[in-house]
């Protein structure tokens, strides 16, 4: 395993770059980070109609989010890869296709997290802000969202670790992220395939496990803070 690392570390890290587009673990990281950065605002935007008081809007938003969540990510990837070009006439390289899919898919999940986070906040917060003369948007922006976001943090962290794992599906459409790069290497080293897979698993473990721990820690701290907040002063 060490030997494979010594010989192929650069290829595993950045793929065939600069002769081919950037690939390998670097592309996985870029996809995951830019995926989350873009999925956050998308999730927030999708949460707006989900909390609308206008029934048809809310129902439509629920339907869209349900649709996105009930179809396998792999199928979404294939939709975007094969049908987007047919519909809008522009075809994207696999990595961009993957990014678009990840952003929409995770946006739907994040919107649910956002709604849950806002609903979990005591109504008194909104009422107090409104009675102090804040407008609806101001209340949301300055009172509700900052507090809700803090409650959502554990869920958002675990969403990021899901996102990192989801980038592996790029291999299905030939995006040369870590999965594809390692698979190609395994093809070239027939006797050592198992070791390459072990390295691949280790790479994902190294990326996701720390996030798992951070998420768990945040969750524990959050539940302690919530307990303190709800316990009556004695």
């Amino acid at each position, binding site marked *: 395993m060490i030997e494979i690392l010594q010989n192929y570390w650069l290829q595993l890290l950045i793929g065939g770059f600069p002769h081919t587009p950037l690939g390998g673990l670097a592309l996985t990281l870029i996809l995951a980070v830019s995926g989350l950065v873009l999925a956050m605002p998308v999730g927030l935007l999708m949460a707006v109609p989900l909390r609308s008081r206008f029934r048809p809007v809310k129902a439509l938003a629920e339907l869209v989010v349900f649709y996105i969540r*009930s*179809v396998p990510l792999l199928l979404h990837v294939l939709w975007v890869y094969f049908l987007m070009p047919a519909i809008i006439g522009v075809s994207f390289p696999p990595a961009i296709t993957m990014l678009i899919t990840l952003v929409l898919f995770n946006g739907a999940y994040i919107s649910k997290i956002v709604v849950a986070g806002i609903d979990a906040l005591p109504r008194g917060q909104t009422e107090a802000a409104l009675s102090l003369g804040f407008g609806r948007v101001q209340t949301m922006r300055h009172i509700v969202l900052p507090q809700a976001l803090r409650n959502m943090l554990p869920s958002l962290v675990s969403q990021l670790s*899901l996102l990192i794992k989801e980038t592996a599906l790029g291999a299905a459409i030939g995006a040369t992220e870590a999965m594809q790069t390692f*698979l190609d290497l395994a093809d070239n080293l027939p006797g050592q395939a198992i070791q390459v897979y072990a390295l691949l*698993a280790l790479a994902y473990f190294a990326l996701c496990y720390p996030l798992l721990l951070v998420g768990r820690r945040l*969750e524990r701290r959050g539940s302690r803070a919530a307990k303190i907040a709800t316990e009556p002063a004695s």
Partner: protein
Amino acid sequence: MTLIEFLSGRYGELLLKGLIVTLQLSGVTLAASFVIGVALTLIRLSPLWIVQQAVGLLVDAIRSVPLLVHVIFWYFGAPELLPDGLRMWLYARDVNFICAAIAISIYAGAFISEDLRSGLRSIPRGQSEASLSLGFSGFETFRYIILPQAFRISVPPLLGQAMTLTKNTSIALMIGVPELVYQARRIQDITYEPLMPYASATLVYVVICAILTLASRAYSRTALAHRTELERTPNTREQSA
């Protein structure tokens, strides 16, 4: 060509075959992953600190690696490690299906064990204290007091896992298991037309998830309605891909 015409022909038949494989794979892995999840949870209840930590790390490690990597490992990697006789036996059978089922079961089992564990942990300490002071033994307390309540709390997240698991079986297409999405791709390769096959496959998943979502809601309404203090279901962890 309308969707009805498309589905009533040869391609409908292929998709139906794919659906059957998807349902088989989901059924088998759901049962197996539940058994694995329960087993992992029980082992984690061991009083030995080192056992708890080891199983905890194993569960975390399984959850940290994408399902696709699990599937590839069990299909391309693991058979190489088997003794010749066993490998021949495996290859004489539906090796793709078996390896996919093993990989998905282990992956989902790790998530299920987390759900079961947070279900167990959400039972207030007072429950077991009261039961012990009433003269129940440690095992009886677990069997009659803790487990029934923990199980009831765990049902909605478990239905969520069933949904995720069904979606995740689509990843088996990467090792050539002829499930629903595989058949959709195959039809696309034949007709050069992606819309109909993908739309049909998508529709099937939406229907499956709608059924499971309704079941989960019905359960929460009836079974949990009168248990207000336990209504807070534990945080579910999606398996995703």
